């Protein structure tokens, strides 16, 4: 059935509005999202500044401080955690039943899930820009136009990491199982990437781990952001991120397909 475009836009607006309201009501979530990367920036990076020098490499035209180097990784970390938080919220909503309200709206399921994904990404943008403001105050030096240039890439990386969270939420049966995600998804993705150290350094230490890093889509999210902050487009990384988004979202839609029966296997009455 063809439905007027206005209905689709109204639905998207409603999902965005609800996500924003929930975000406003969960101040702790905002503070936690901000504090986590700031701890890395202000404590971890300060401590490692003198140990880990970063030589000149694209997109940097000169030597940069370690704090500057890890900013794109920390931005991606915010989006990764936000994606997982959205995933946790979806598992919670499914357990509590409110996911059913979304899934029984008279619009295609892929569109409802895409709306949810866009809303989660919009929330992550607020978190990222709040972090960038604080990072700027502590003298992380980024090109002023980089704050603007990074926006479309933030959208893309946020959608990709959100889609990964959505895919995971379609496979997790119980809220209690979510703790495993922290151990098996978030930390390996973050540490096995170029977020904290350049990959050439990783290759010097371990070729095996380096190979894992270059197979990790998070690495390409970090590199896309790193280049965008310096007004450059790293097309290979952007392509990998876009490809990963398509794969993760496609699998998430498949996971939520009622014919698979994966999402609601709890008929009782």
């Amino acid at each position: 059935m063809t439905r007027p475009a206005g209905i689709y836009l109204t639905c998207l607006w409603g999902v965005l509005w609800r996500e924003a309201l929930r975000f406003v009501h969960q101040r702790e979530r905002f503070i936690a999202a901000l504090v986590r990367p700031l701890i890395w920036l202000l404590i971890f990076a300060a401590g490692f500044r003198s140990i880990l020098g970063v030589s000149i490499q694209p997109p940097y035209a000169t030597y940069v401080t370690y704090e500057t180097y890890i900013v794109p990784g920390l931005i991606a970390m915010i989006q990764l955690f936000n994606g997982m938080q959205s995933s946790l919220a979806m598992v919670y909503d499914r357990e509590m039943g409110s996911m059913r309200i979304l899934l029984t709206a008279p619009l295609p399921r892929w569109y409802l899930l895409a709306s949810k994904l866009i809303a989660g990404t919009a929330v992550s943008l607020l978190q990222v820009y709040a972090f960038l403001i604080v990072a700027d105050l502590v003298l992380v030096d980024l090109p002023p136009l980089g704050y603007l240039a990074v926006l479309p890439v933030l959208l893309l990386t946020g959608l990709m990491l959100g889609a990964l969270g959505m895919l995971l939420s379609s496979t997790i049966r119980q809220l209690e199982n979510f703790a495993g995600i922290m151990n098996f998804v978030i930390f390996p993705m973050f540490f096995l990437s170029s977020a904290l150290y350049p990959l050439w350094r990783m290759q010097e230490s371990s070729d095996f781990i380096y190979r894992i890093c270059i197979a990790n889509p998070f690495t390409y999210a970090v590199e896309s952001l790193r280049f965008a902050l310096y007004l450059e487009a790293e097309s290979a990384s952007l392509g990998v991120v876009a490809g990963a988004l398509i794969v993760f979202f496609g699998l998430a839609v498949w996971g939520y397909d009622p014919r698979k029966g994966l999402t609601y296997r709890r008929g009782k009455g």
Partner: protein
Amino acid sequence: MDETQGIEIVDVRYDYGAKPALADVSMALRPGRFTALLGPNGAGKTTLVSLLSALFVPQGGRISVFGIDLAKNPLSALAVMGIVFQQQTLDLDLSVRQNMAYFAALHGLAGHRAGQRIDTCLTRLGLAARQTEKVRALNGGHRRRLEIARSLLHAPRFLLLDEPTVGLDVPARADLVAHVHALCREDGLTVLWATHLVDEVEADDDLVVLHEGSVRAQGAVSAVLASSGAQDVLGAFQLLTKPAPAEAAP
């Protein structure tokens, strides 16, 4: 949509792995009637509601809603359905009105029209004075009323409720049952009310008794009583859901 056709469920089958939940279930809900789907826990009521609301897809058989084939055109069918699930589905930290507005948006209602519908439905269910309160502050009965008000926002013609009185005290239960009967009578809504509580069935309702995944009786309450030989709904329910002799043996 042809509202005169009512809701048709024909030979519907659904299994959870090796465990059958519904075995060739067929029933017809007359348009504009209140049909009570009565069955003990585990009878398959929630599975049937999940199939009707397109959360599940039948593994056999077909369902049509006012002539709309649910498998071929689920979005058109969902557009004319209002659903109240057994589990509460409200956002506790949002206000009554915000919950309504979110649902309105999901159904493509916005602006002045959405506002009007929200006012109408909240007034109808006696919640207009509480629209700025957070849902967390409402008691169980009012939360259920809110869910019903929400399910009516897009002016559905088929209202599907899965054990909506679970967890409510006796007065709140009676109040809710009366409200939905009034909606059926006054608006001509077709209602399917799944329950395991016989006192929620009224004498002039239609009744379907579901047990162990199959329909044991259906028709007007009077017809079900006559065919089962029972004096009242409780008696009919007990007779129709009585374990077979082999099962009853210790």
